């Protein structure tokens, strides 16, 4: 009986309870309470891991090491803040009549089960279960995206389902191949899908199978990371779902999918002597960065725009991990953290802004600093942070990535320069008139939840200026595991 049980026991319980009480007036608070519980459990887990190193649970079915524990904490934290944000947001939606009691029940219950699947995917030691959890995450988020039942949201959800379902299917085939390769080494019984076992014997795994397997796994989980050209579901899903869902999609789901890829990368690198995985990740990462940057310059819908910026940043992170080496890997992990913090913060403010203006079209959102300075400055600072302006943490990681790339892969830097420039120009040119300038809209009757926004931004700021030593050692260990 250990903390791990609570980490995903709580959200599971929460989803069950909220399935019945989700429409009640106090449901948002319950939601927050469960997320808080999860977060506390996650923190306790973190402490445990930091103090006594990697832990196994339930005869090696679950495994917590520095790599996943930090994503676990991040997940739990963003889950909590998003729950805080969704309180006033969903109230407003209900008052606008966009959320019926049934939908609220569905929403809250799915919210909890989504964080359950995330945590399951993160903590499991079994590649098969990892796949199952990812698929389950897809299912829950599909329901969340389609919660408004509008034509657009249905279309988005359908595309999301089909594309990710197909992608995930590839991942399953990859897993089968992996199992097949492992079985010959580990033996048919004795959990040939247990990651730690595989990690122990990864050098003996057969290269040809592993190569094939990684190809499938990369396509599969890459679809969920949103790598170009597998990204097409992502903007629709972000734009059409409720804003808290967009926040957790960008803040959590993408990270977890990338985490899955990293786990596979470690094994593959062990099995193969060549730089296959690195090249693949750099190539797709770079492609994503560039393409997403150009997409950014054509957006009209604010949430869609920031969805593309998520693609861009995921590409950057993938590129960093692809480069490998201690600095780049460290930067990748750091970027993962700050991106999910900042991006979810942006979605919070965007959500409020869109509710005020009653639209997500950027031309019709104007002069936020006039109506509500907190929201306005939140959006301004958040956008600047996500665009890599110091002293926010995004800049720290981009600094490390670019400087490392400059000497190791100079060919990539012009593309990165181009992409970052275009992205900066596009986003800033749209955010400026939204934040400043004239406006006519009225303030909302529910006070917006700006605390989560500024908590996130504050943390991002902190990570840019000062990284606590335990966090640093944690990152370093993780980086070492990924093979930095």
């Amino acid at each position, binding site marked *: 009986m250990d903390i791990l049980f609570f980490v995903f026991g709580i959200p599971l319980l929460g989803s069950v309870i909220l399935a019945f009480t989700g429409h009640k007036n106090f449901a948002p608070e319950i939601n927050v309470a469960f997320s808080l519980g999860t977060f506390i459990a996650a923190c306790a887990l973190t402490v445990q891991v930091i103090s006594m190193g990697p832990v196994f649970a339930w005869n090696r079915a679950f495994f917590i090491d520095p790599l996943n524990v930090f994503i676990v904490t991040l997940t739990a934290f963003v889950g909590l803040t998003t729950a805080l944000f969704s309180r006033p947001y969903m109230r407003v939606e209900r008052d606008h009549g966009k959320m019926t009691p049934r939908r609220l029940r569905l929403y809250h219950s799915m919210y909890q089960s989504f964080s359950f699947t995330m945590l399951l995917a993160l903590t499991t030691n079994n590649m098969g279960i990892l796949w199952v959890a990812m698929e389950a995450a897809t299912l829950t988020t599909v329901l969340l995206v389609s919660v408004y039942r509008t034509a657009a949201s249905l279309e988005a959800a359908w595309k999301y389902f089909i594309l990710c379902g197909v992608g995930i*299917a590839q991942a399953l085939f990859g897993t089968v191949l992996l199992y097949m390769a492992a079985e010959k080494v580990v033996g048919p019984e004795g959990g040939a899908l247990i990651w730690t076992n595989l990690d122990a014997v990864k050098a003996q795994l057969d290269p040809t199978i592993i190569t094939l397997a990684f190809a499938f796994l990369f396509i599969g989980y890459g679809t969920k990371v949103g790598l170009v050209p597998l990204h097409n579901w992502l903007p629709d899903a972000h734009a059409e779902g409720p804003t808290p869902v967009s926040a957790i999609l960008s803040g959590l789901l993408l990270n977890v999918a990338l985490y899955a890829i990293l786990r596979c990368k470690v094994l593959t690198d062990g099995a193969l002597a060549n730089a296959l995985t690195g090249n693949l990740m750099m190539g797709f990462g770079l492609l994503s960065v560039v393409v997403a940057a150009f997409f950014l310059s054509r957006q009209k819908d604010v949430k869609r725009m920031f969805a593309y910026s998520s693609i861009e940043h995921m590409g950057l992170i993938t590129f960093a991990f692809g480069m490998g080496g201690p600095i780049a890997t460290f930067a990748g992990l750091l970027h993962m953290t700050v991106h999910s913090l900042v991006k979810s913060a942006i979605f919070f403010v965007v959500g409020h802004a869109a509710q005020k203006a009653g639209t997500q079209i950027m031309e019709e959102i104007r002069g936020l600093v006039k109506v509500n300075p907190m929201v306005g400055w939140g959006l301004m600072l958040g956008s600047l942070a996500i665009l890599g302006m110091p002293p926010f943490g995004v800049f720290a990681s981009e600094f490390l990535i670019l400087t490392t790339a400059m000497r190791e892969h100079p060919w990539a830097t012009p593309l990165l320069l181009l992409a970052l420039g275009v992205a900066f120009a596009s986003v800033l040119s749209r955010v400026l008139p939204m934040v400043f300038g004239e406006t006519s809209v009225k303030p909302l009757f529910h006070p917006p939840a700006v605390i989560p926004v500024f908590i996130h931004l504050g943390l991002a700021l902190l990570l840019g200026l000062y990284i606590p030593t335990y966090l640093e050692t944690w990152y370093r260990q993780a980086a070492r595991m990924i093979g930095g």
Partner: protein
Amino acid sequence: MSGIASQLINLFAAMLLLLAFAMISQRRVLSLIYLFTLQGATLAAATAVVGYATHQPHLYISASITLVLKVFLIPWLLHRVIDRLNVRWDVETLINIPTTMLIGILLVILAFYLALPVSQLSSSIARGTLGIALACMLLSFMMMITRSKAVPQVIGFLSMENGLFFAATAATYGMPMVVELGIALDVLVGILILGVFMFQIREQFDSLDIRHLEKLKED
């Protein structure tokens, strides 16, 4: 004994491939469902035979799961859906059938080429069939691409899962039990959600033609 078994398995594998082609060439929704059911049955049988031949009891279980899920439950659901939404008419494909067939043949060749080195390394009696499994998967993938209605797309998706199951069986006598169960659960939930979706899509667009689902795009 195992000789017959392996022959049986190869036979079933061949049937699966045949069915996959049949699905590609099939125009009518109803017969698509029948073919899918048949595919599921074949898959279950193949699994069972492998289990019998290699004395692996858990394969019986997965065989039975397959049977229940893919022969009875899902086809039944699909039938209900198309009855409710009466969309039993013909499906026009985006690419014409002969072309699809040709591409399909190319895909099969590719799949075999890919699977050959791998299946050399397999210890399973069904090793030769891995290529077929991969081929089935790719074929159903292509079917999803070419179909313009929701139901056939879903069927393609499911038959892709069939291909995966068969691959698992053929290559490695199936995955660990817990994983099998998990996958089965996901498939089940997935099909349920899809079913619900189809109703909602229907009431939104009063048609299941996914060409209505092309509003969200870059303009």
